[in-house]
């Protein structure tokens, strides 16, 4: 497996511009001869499809929802970072780059992160030009707030609906291209496999989720922007449809999967309430700008709260432990996500958790309301407070919110080089589906930034470079008549037939729930060698059971959510094992990956740069074979490797 990252030579600040200059261009008249397939219509996919079409390429874009506007990017609440330094508080491209590398626990690729920081300022300009109604000051200038892991205010936001507004901006540009006929949009279509011709990605096989028809689509290259795999945990903050299928199918066809064990656990979710729950809901991190996180000082007090004998508001000041402010005084409640999550877990492990399950801590706005008045808090977070009340039935203006960490974002993904090309030539991967920019932990408000950076500013160049390298004579040369398409299509159909024919006793959802339970318990917020080995064995057994006992009702030739689920759960089963293997291999604690064997005396994560400053990339070798590990060493030339301290 060739892991040449193709990082351009030269000083970090000049890499992207010199690379852009050296890239091959396709002359505008020739662009219409090429056809690009984009899978996914979120920030990365939608923006890439719109930008490529605008440049003149013909684009086919696929999404499983009923409209590209519903991609899960829409659910991001808090904001998007950009090194604009509008606040004059010392921000710069270099500082955003530095914060991102440090926040990612030194497991991201420097050159990619620098480019991300560099284009971040252009993203804001682009979004404003397309009509995104970011929050403004009275003078008409853009407003900013700060987010976890940063000491400057660089986060741009549109109320608590930033992701929605950014996505609608990209969707509007995409819609324009659909209207012009440059993008052919396939709603309610699910990609089930990728087709390679002479080693290059030249097409995909998709299922029309309305008619059940399996069809072939050929192109000159394929862009995957299919989001993250957090739903492998069953309960997560992801949308119900989020899945790993496209990425995992690509992996099985030769794309290396990098760092799957890097899962971000977000500290501020509404706690789990019972076993009927289907998903977890995030409360925006921006709440931590004003909310103070605490747990009772003693397990006895916590016990009384859990039993309903004591109300949170009646806990006296000296019985409250504002543990983030205590342990991480310089960042306080805005400590990064991995650190805040682990601190909450620690408090609950000590028996100081609240909520009926004991798995919760408080996020208290009492002091902020006293200081700024309820109206100010309402203006800042009104919709989030309403959402909380809607879900829990409690009024957070009167009683503190209850929060607990939950699976939120995945930093691992398909391995890509600097051009965002995977180990399959001609297959590009953008947004959460790739691995490159966030390292082992993602700082708040950087996901939206990365999705749009990839979609608007990176892929439109690098895809063009690839097509230019192939030469115009190659444009449109591969058609769906090629035998490779028939072969892959037959595989896809056989798999569906197999799922439909098992006719067992257990629903796909039930299997998914069992899988999620194993992974959360053994590869969740804390991981151990023993637990991971157990998990791998249990997942293998579960996978076997799945293929013998899953029950998919309904028909394959129409709308069938059970069949869709079954296919995705089958992939999650295999992928879950890979995730645990990666976690087992990584004998260190870092970012979202905490190995109990590797911690300092005071319980902080202990990284091992000597042995693990690399990207772990897995090669698929066969269904019954262990995958092979490859390493891309991470070389830090600009940011000195140092222990992350937020104290």
């Amino acid at each position, binding site marked *: 497996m060739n892991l040449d990252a193709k990082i351009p030579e030269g000083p970090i600040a000049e890499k992207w511009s010199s690379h852009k200059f050296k890239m091959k261009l396709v002359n505008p008249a020739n662009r219409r001869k090429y056809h690009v397939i984009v899978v996914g219509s979120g920030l990365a996919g939608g923006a890439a499809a719109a930008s490529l079409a605008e440049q003149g390429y013909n684009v086919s874009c696929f999404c499983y929802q009923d409209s590209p506007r519903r991609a899960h990017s829409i659910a991001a609440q808090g904001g998007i970072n950009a090194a604009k330094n509008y606040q004059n508080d010392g921000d710069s491209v270099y500082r955003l780059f530095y914060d991102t590398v440090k926040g990612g626990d030194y497991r991201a690729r420097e050159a990619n992160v620098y480019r991300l920081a560099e284009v971040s300022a252009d993203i804001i300009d682009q979004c404003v030009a397309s009509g995104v109604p*970011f929050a403004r000051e009275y003078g008409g200038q853009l407003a900013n707030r700060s987010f976890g892991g940063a000491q400057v205010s660089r986060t741009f936001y549109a109320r608590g609906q930033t992701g929605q507004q950014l996505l609608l901006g990209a969707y509007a540009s995409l819609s324009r291209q659909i209207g012009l006929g440059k993008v052919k949009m396939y709603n309610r279509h699910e990609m089930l496999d990728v087709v390679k011709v002479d080693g290059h990605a030249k097409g995909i096989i998709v299922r029309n989720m309305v008619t059940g028809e399996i069809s072939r689509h050929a192109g000159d290259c394929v862009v995957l922007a299919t989001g993250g795999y957090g739903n492998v945990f069953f309960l997560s903050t992801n949308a119900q449809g989020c899945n790993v299928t496209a990425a995992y199918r690509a992996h099985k066809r030769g794309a290396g999967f990098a760092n799957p064990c890097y899962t971000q656990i977000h500290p501020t979710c509404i706690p789990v309430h019972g076993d009927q729950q289907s998903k977890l809901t995030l409360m925006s991190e921006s709440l931590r700008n004003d909310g103070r996180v605490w747990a009772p000082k003693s397990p006895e007090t916590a016990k009384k709260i859990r039993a309903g004998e004591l109300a949170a508001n009646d806990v006296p000041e000296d019985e409250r432990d504002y543990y983030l402010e205590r342990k991480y005084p310089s960042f306080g409640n805005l400590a990064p996500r991995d650190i805040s999550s682990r601190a909450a877990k620690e408090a609950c492990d000590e028996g100081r958790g609240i909520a009926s399950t004991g798995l919760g801590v408080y996020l208290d706005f009492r002091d902020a309301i006293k200081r700024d008045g309820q109206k100010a808090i309402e203006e800042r977070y009104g919709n989030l407070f309403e959402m909380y009340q809607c879900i829990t039935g409690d009024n957070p203006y009167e009683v503190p919110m209850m929060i607990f960490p939950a699976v939120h974002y995945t930093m691992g993904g398909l391995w890509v080089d600097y051009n965002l090309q995977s180990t399959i030539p001609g297959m590009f991967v953008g947004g959460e589906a790739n691995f490159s920019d966030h390292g082992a932990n993602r700082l708040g408000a950087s996901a939206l930034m990365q999705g749009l950076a990839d979609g608007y500013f990176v892929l439109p160049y690098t895809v063009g470079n690839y097509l230019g390298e192939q030469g115009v004579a190659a444009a449109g040369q591969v058609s769906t008549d090629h035998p490779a398409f028939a072969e892959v299509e037959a595989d896809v159909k056989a798999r569906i037939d197999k799922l439909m024919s098992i006719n067992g006793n257990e629903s796909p959802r039930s299997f998914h729930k069992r899988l999620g339970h194993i992974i959360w318990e053994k590869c969740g917020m804390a991981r151990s060698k023993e637990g991971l080995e157990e998990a791998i064995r249990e997942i293998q057994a579960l996978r076997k059971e799945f293929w013998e006992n899953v029950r998919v009702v309904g028909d394959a030739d129409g709308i069938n959510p059970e069949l869709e689920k079954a296919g995705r759960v089958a992939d999650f089963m295999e992928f879950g094992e890979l995730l645990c293997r990666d976690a087992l291999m990584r004998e260190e604690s870092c970012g979202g990956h905490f190995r109990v064997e590797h911690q300092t005396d005071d319980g902080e994560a202990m990284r091992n740069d000597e042995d693990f400053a690399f990207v772990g990339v897995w090669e698929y070798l066969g269904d019954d074979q262990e995958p092979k590990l490859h390493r891309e060493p991470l070389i830090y030339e600009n940011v000195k490797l140092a222990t992350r301290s937020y104290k």
Partner: protein
Amino acid sequence: MNLTLKVWRQKNGETKGKFEEYPLSDVSEDSSFLEMLDILNEQLVEQGQEPVAFDHDCREGICGMCSMTINGIPHGPQRATTACQLHMRHFRDGQTITIEPWRAKPFPVMKDLVVDRSPFDRIIQSGGFITGRTGSAVDANDMPIPKSTADYAMDAAACIGCGACVAACPNASAMLFTAAKASHMNSLPQGKAEKDRRTLAMVSTMDDEGFGGCTNIGECEAVCPKQISLDMIAHLNRDYAQAQVKNFFQTVS
């Protein structure tokens, strides 16, 4: 809680549908409405029956995918709440709940509670955007936008495109949706250049898709989970009148 569900079952667009009745027990009042349907579906799968197909995705009230009429009201009885954010504590033990798809001619039923809302996409594709090249915008602060304008644009832009407005309207009018989208773009300085063109294109597409006219009944506003206000419709009517007058004297293109 124990409930009786009367659910619309329809195999596909070609076949006729009908209500089926299902008893359901042990529903937690902390569950959301869709989680309650998950339980029903697990029960149906167990009995070897096809589960109820319904559209849903983020379950956080923002993607706009969930769409169902609950006891006669799109998204159910709770104001400003999507079906996925509606919790069972708002229902009574022993209650009978009727669940059916959006009813509107431009939104044909595809299966059970799933309808085709692609006409909304086509309204946007006809002009609901700002024409601009990606990657070459001026600095965002070069164009100050008064806070009140940005806030107003955000009020309009909050629309999630769920289609409840159409389902609630006796005329199946898409005015609230179209108005929200047009008002968002038309109110911002960036969107002014093609305001007339946009307005005419979106309204004419809306009519061509078969949505009915707006007669100011206000059901749309009442059911809108994002509380998009009727003011947006007034805004669109004003922009439309202006554009038509201009178009009368010189074709807007």
